[in-house]
C-alpha cells in the first residue's frame, strides 16, 4: 500500500550487556504499519522497549532481526532523511540562543538566509516562543526547552515525527496544553506522528491509533482506534468514549505492568 509510511516486519532487538555478557531480548517480534499522516501512539510499562522501538524506526540503532522500511526503502546504518525526533531528555544546545537552536538543522540545507529566517520565525510562533528568540535555554523552563526542540524538529519539515515521552517531565496542566499544541502542529504540518508515552490519557487524547506494548520483550499486544475527528483538542477528555478507550488500554496494560513490577502486587487480594 502506498500510504504505509513505516513498515516493520518480524523486528527483534537483542542487546548483549553485563558481566559476563548475556543476551537481553529487549523487543520483538514486532510487525507494524504506520500510515502516512496518522497520529500513532505506543503505550507500555516502563522498561518494555518503547524507546528501543523508536530508536529502531529513527535509524539510530539496527534491528537484530527483521526489516524496517521508511517510505518503501529499508533503513540503513544512519537515520534517513525526512525523520525528526523529539527526545525525552532536554536536547537543546545550551551554547546557542533559542533562534539559533531552532535553525541548527538548517545550516547545511540549500535554503537562502531569508527563507531560513522565515521558517525559524514561523516555527517559533507555532510553539509560542517568538518573544524568547534571543534567550538561552538556561533561562527557560523545562517545558519551553522541550518546545525549542519541537520547533527545531519542525523547521526541517520532517514527514515523520517521532516523540519519545516529550512531555514526561511536565506537570499535568502543561501536558494537556502541550498536547493541544501538538495536535495543532500535526494538523498544520500534515506529518505522521509517532508518540511514545506511559500516560494512557495522553495517548487516548492525542492519537488516531494506539498500540499497547507488552512487558519485556516488548511486543505490540493490542491496537485501539480512537475514531476522533482530525479537528480535536484536549476537551475530548470529557467525551464518554475517552473513558472507555482509556479503560480498554488499562485492561491490557495492567496485566503487562504487573509482569514488569512483579507478581506480588497483582496477587494481593
Amino acid at each position, binding site marked *: 500500500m502506498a500510504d504505509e509510511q513505516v513498515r516493520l516486519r518480524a523486528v527483534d532487538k537483542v542487546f548483549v550487556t553485563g558481566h559476563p555478557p548475556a543476551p537481553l531480548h529487549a523487543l520483538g517480534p514486532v510487525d507494524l504499519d504506520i500510515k502516512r499522516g496518522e497520529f500513532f501512539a505506543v503505550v507500555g510499562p516502563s522498561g518494555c522497549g518503547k524507546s528501543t522501538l523508536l530508536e529502531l524506526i529513527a535509524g539510530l540503532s539496527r534491528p537484530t532481526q527483521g526489516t524496517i522500511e521508511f517510505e518503501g526503502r529499508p533503513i540503513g546504518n544512519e537515520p534517513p532523511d525526512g525523520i525528526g525526533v523529539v527526545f525525552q531528555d532536554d*536536547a537543546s544546545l*545550551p551554547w546557542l540562543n533559542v533562534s539559533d537552536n531552532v535553525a541548527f538543522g538548517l545550516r547545511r540545507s540549500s535554503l537562502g538566509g531569508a527563507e531560513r529566517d522565515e521558517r525559524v520565525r514561523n516555527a517559533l510562533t507555532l510553539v509560542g516562543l517568538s518573544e524568547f528568540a534571543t534567550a*538561552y535555554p*538556561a533561562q527557560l523552563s523545562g517545558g519551553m526547552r522541550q518546545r525549542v526542540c519541537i520547533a527545531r524538529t519542525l523547521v526541517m519539515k520532517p514527514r515523520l515525527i517521532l516523540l519519545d515521552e516529550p512531555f514526561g517531565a511536565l506537570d499535568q496542566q502543561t501536558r494537556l496544553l502541550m498536547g493541544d499544541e501538538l495536535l495543532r502542529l500535526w494538523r498544520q504540518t500534515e506529518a505522521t506522528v509517532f508518540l511514545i508515552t506511559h500516560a494512557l490519557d495522553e495517548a487516548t487524547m492525542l492519537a488516531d491509533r494506539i498500540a499497547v506494548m507488552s512487558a519485556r520483550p516488548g511486543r505490540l499486544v493490542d491496537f485501539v482506534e480512537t475514531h476522533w475527528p482530525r479537528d480535536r483538542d484536549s476537551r475530548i477528555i470529557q467525551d464518554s468514549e475517552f473513558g472507555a478507550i482509556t479503560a480498554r488500554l488499562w485492561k491490557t496494560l495492567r496485566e503487562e505492568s504487573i509482569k514488569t513490577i512483579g507478581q506480588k502486587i497483582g496477587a494481593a487480594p
Partner: protein
Amino acid sequence: MINRLIVYRALVIGAVIALLEVLCLTGVIDKITMQPPHQIARDLYRMLVSGRMNGAILKTLNNTLLALLLALGVGIIAGALLHRWRGVRDTLDPLFATYYAVPVFAFYPFFIVVFGLGDVPQILIAFMLGVVAMIVNTLNGLDRVPAVLLKTARIMRLSPVDTARRVTLPAAGPYIVTGIKLAVAYAFIGVIGSEFIMSRGGIGYEISFAYLNFDNATMYPLIVLILLASIVINAFLSRWEQRLLVRRGMR
C-alpha cells in the same frame, strides 16, 4: 557582598606592599636584597618607557603564544580523536595520569642539543607542558556530552567532523576553557623557565642576567611585570569561563 570581598582583597595586597615598603625603608631588608616597592614601580615605568626590554618582552610573549596555540590546536584535535579511538586512549591513559609527575625541563638540554639554542627548545618545553592539560580537559569535557545531543547530531545527519565542530566540542566548551587556562599558565612557565636555564634572550634570561649582576633595578621590575601579565591574562580567561558557565546556567 562581592564588593566587600574585593575591598578586603585589595586591603590584603595593599598591606603586604606597605609592609615591604616599611621593611625596606627602615633597612630591615637591605638594599642589595630588595628595592622598596615604590622604587620597583618607578624602575618598571622607566624600563617600559625606555624600551630597552621590548625585545626580550616580545620574544617571550611571542614564544609563549606560539607554544600556546600549538598546545591548543594539537590538544583539542588529539583529545577529539582519542575520544573516538577508545583503544588508543586506554593505552595512553597511564601516560596522561602520570605525565605531570615528570619534570619536563629535564628534556631541555636534549632539545638544545637537537635543535640548537634558538627558540625551538623553549617553545617545545612550553608546548609539552601545556598540551597534555589540553588533551585531558578536552577528553573530560567530551565524556560529559549528554547522549541525547549525540543522537540529535545523528538525526540531523551531521558528518563526524561537523558533529565535533558543531555539537561535541561546543558542548565540552567549559572544560576546554579550563584546559586553556591551564595551558596558558604552563606555556608561560615553560618559556620563562627555559629562558632562565639557558637561552639567548627573553624575560627569563634578562631576570637571570640581572640577578647574576646584582642589577636589582632590572630584576624586580621584570618579576613584577611577569606577575602583572599573568594576573591580567588569567582574569580575562576567568571572566570568559564565568560567562560561558552563566549562559549555560551552570553557575
